């Protein structure tokens, strides 16, 4: 094969799918409403206890452990993919600058993200031991790789890096932002677990409302301002609906199996994970975007800040997370009332902003940045 990276990315696509299924099985078949203590780091968390009512043969397998193993295998594949892609890109660019991360086309960013996001998640899992988060993260990695493999982005041959991207500041800028996004992704996975627990009964309603809002924005608000490419739009909406339906189905399934109420302590601990992930992600994202991005933009376009749609969207994201951090600091996580819940929803909003700044904007607005 001419481009080994493409081969490894295909392999990791499959492998992430398997991993996703394993995490799903783990989440569905293990009862997880017992408290988990963050101090239990390293030990197999108490989450892993088999539900008394569900001691069937399927539930007796330790799916969580297999999921983690499978994740590591997937990571090996995608690490190889990224390594090869870097070399291929370097060759195609005649090594104008000594080292580039493969981040100059949508295909490359998607594959790069699907490497770094699960990698960061692996660290989060090691540290906190809540494996339900993996369902979202590996699912997202699989979706990203599938999108990257789809004909519209095509596992294309690497081409020379455009002049504006030939800068070490760009590499630093993107790398920091991707690390930030990776932490936010784990944080969002944890947020989903948290909200799912917090709003046991009401969740379906809320989730439906959420999808309604997204759908409303996509169908109603954005076309008011922008002319859209219908095909891409239809594809994204279909993807969204599929994801939403799948997730909703999963919730329904899991919900039926659970009878005991969730302990407050468990909730608090999950919330702590959300906070830690977001609080670590924030400096990476903000420094990478506002500082390094600014320095690079000044060299390439003569200004460090220009209210370009993409950089503005990035500012919005950083600001939403700043609001999240402040809200959590003032209103606290121990609030069982609506404020505590609001903090969780702010985290959701932050991640939507991430998605908007990272992917959404490319479809809706012409921008200097539209290459990524």
């Amino acid at each position, binding site marked *: 094969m001419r481009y080994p990276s493409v081969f490894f990315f295909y392999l990791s696509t499959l492998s992430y799918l398997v991993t996703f299924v394993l995490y799903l099985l783990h989440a569905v078949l293990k009862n997880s409403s017992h408290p988990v203590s963050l101090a239990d780091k390293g030990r197999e968390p108490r989450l892993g206890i088999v539900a008394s009512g569900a001691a069937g043969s399927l539930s007796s397998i330790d799916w969580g452990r297999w999921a983690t193993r499978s994740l590591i295998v997937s990571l090996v594949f995608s690490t190889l993919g990224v390594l090869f892609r870097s070399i291929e890109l370097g060759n195609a660019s005649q090594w104008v600058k000594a080292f580039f991360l493969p981040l100059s086309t949508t295909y490359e960013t998607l594959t790069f993200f699907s490497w770094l996001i699960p990698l960061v998640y692996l660290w989060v899992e090691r540290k906190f031991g809540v494996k339900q988060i993996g369902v979202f993260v590996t699912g997202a990695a699989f979706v990203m790789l599938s999108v990257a493999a789809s004909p519209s982005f095509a596992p294309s041959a690497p081409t020379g890096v455009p002049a504006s991207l030939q800068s070490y500041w760009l590499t630093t800028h993107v790398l920091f932002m991707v690390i930030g996004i990776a932490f936010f992704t784990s944080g969002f996975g944890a947020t989903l677990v948290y909200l799912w627990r917090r709003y046991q009964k009401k969740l379906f309603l809320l989730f439906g409302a959420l999808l309604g809002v997204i759908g409303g924005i996509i169908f109603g608000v954005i076309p008011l301002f922008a002319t859209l490419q219908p095909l891409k739009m239809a594809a994204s909406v279909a993807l969204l609906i599929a994801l939403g339906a799948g997730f909703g189905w999963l919730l329904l399934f899991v919900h039926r199996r659970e009878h005991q109420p969730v302990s407050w302590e468990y909730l608090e601990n999950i919330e702590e994970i959300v906070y830690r992930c977001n609080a670590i992600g924030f*400096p990476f994202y903000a420094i990478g975007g506002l500082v390094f991005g600014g320095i690079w933009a000044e060299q390439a376009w003569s200004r460090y800040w220009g209210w370009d749609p993409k950089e503005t969207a990035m500012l919005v994201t950083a600001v939403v997370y700043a609001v999240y951090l402040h809200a959590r600091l003032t209103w606290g996580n121990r609030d069982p009332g609506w404020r505590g819940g609001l903090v969780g929803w702010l985290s959701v909003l932050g991640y939507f902003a991430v998605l908007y700044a990272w992917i959404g904007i490319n479809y809706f607005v012409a921008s200097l940045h539209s290459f990524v």
Partner: protein
Amino acid sequence: MSAFFKEIAQDLYRFFTSITLAIVLISLIALFSFVGTLIPQEAFTREVDYIARFGFEGYQILKQLQLTNIFGSWYFLFVMALFTLNLTACTVKRLRASWRYWKLPMLALSPEALQRLEHWRSWEGPIAPETAQRIERVLQRRGYRVRRESSQLLAEKWRWERFGIDLFHIALLVVIFGGLATMLWGFRTFEIAHKGSLIQLPGADFQLRVNRFWSENYKDSERVMDWHTELTVIENGREVFTQTIEVNAPLRYKGYNVYQSAFGTDWQGAANVTLAISRADGTELGEFTSTVNEGFEIPNEKIFVKVGAFLPDFALTENLIAYSRTQRLENPGAYIEIFDLNGTRLMRTWAFARTDMQQFWESSMARVSGASPYRVRLVGMTAPEFTGLQITKDPGRPIVYFGFLFVVLGLLVHLYFKHQQIWVYLGENRIIIGGMARNRPRAFVHEFERLLKEIEQIVPKEEPEPCATLVSSSST
């Protein structure tokens, strides 16, 4: 009366120091910015593109609402101003709190109080006289500053960490002021330069000469690797130095920055067009060549022909304004005016290179304004290459970078350092160690466990009383 003002001042202070206000303002900024990403902004959008997209009416409405320049609109600037005040007030308030915190002495705690801390452990048994000293050394090795107070060791480190987030907020203010300085005292222009052009920068005591410019492709490829322009700085008629700039590598001199920012063919500014002109009856008058904005005389005919404009990709908006859709040579058109020698305009028209366009235009013109005395066709065009240089002077830049530096430092301090305090109570037959870290109860576990492991080597090894077996607690 003064009590009245005092009350108002207090209310204002309370208003501007509230975090709720901060959240509202930040949310508003986020909202306006979001709208700003959906509507193209004036800074990088031409009027005609707005009209093509939103229609004339829609454009007028957007403009009235200042949505096409939202980041310069009064409401955005108003929110920004409030936010700056808010941030300043908060920072001042927090800084005082941090100062008080800094000055707060670390006090000895009673054994009971120690056992109410989130992390503590106790040992029972006879205590060797040098134990205290050895524990003190362990703590010092781990970076704690240790003080002795009667029967206790008081150890702490990183108390200054609390200033990290203050530094961060102050640095945010510095960045905002840097941006303001750029807005107020900065300047920027875009120059289209040809080979040999001399550029005089406003306010500068030097000139720039464009020696040459070129682009470079990747090997065996159409893709451009980079664009370059070779510039010479000339001061008082003397050449100071020569430098080649490229994308991502500007020239910087005396506070001015020159960036490689565009490259291409200068159709709109300097095209050379060749026109074939004939009388309405079909008599050919010949072909003539002229540059945009200039013209030529046809002496035999006693007319003067002026080329008013050249558009490489002619298009019309809905209210019939001609513009160039792209900068590529897709549908070239030249705007022609013909005068008699007294300066009276005889006719005006557009001349096209594409025959279908030419026919369409002539037939519609004939319908609207009757026959015209001459026919003009566009038969040839060339244009010089140009290099586009963005030139700026940006006094805010160092301020902003200075701010950036401390934004980063402040955040890192906030993230990686937490004020940690350890109390070691040395009783008759008992040692109690308690500790805590500001705002970070859980992460402190590891540090505390490591410390205990070292201290365990020192303290009495005797069987402890059954109920006090290594009582330890790590979560609430």
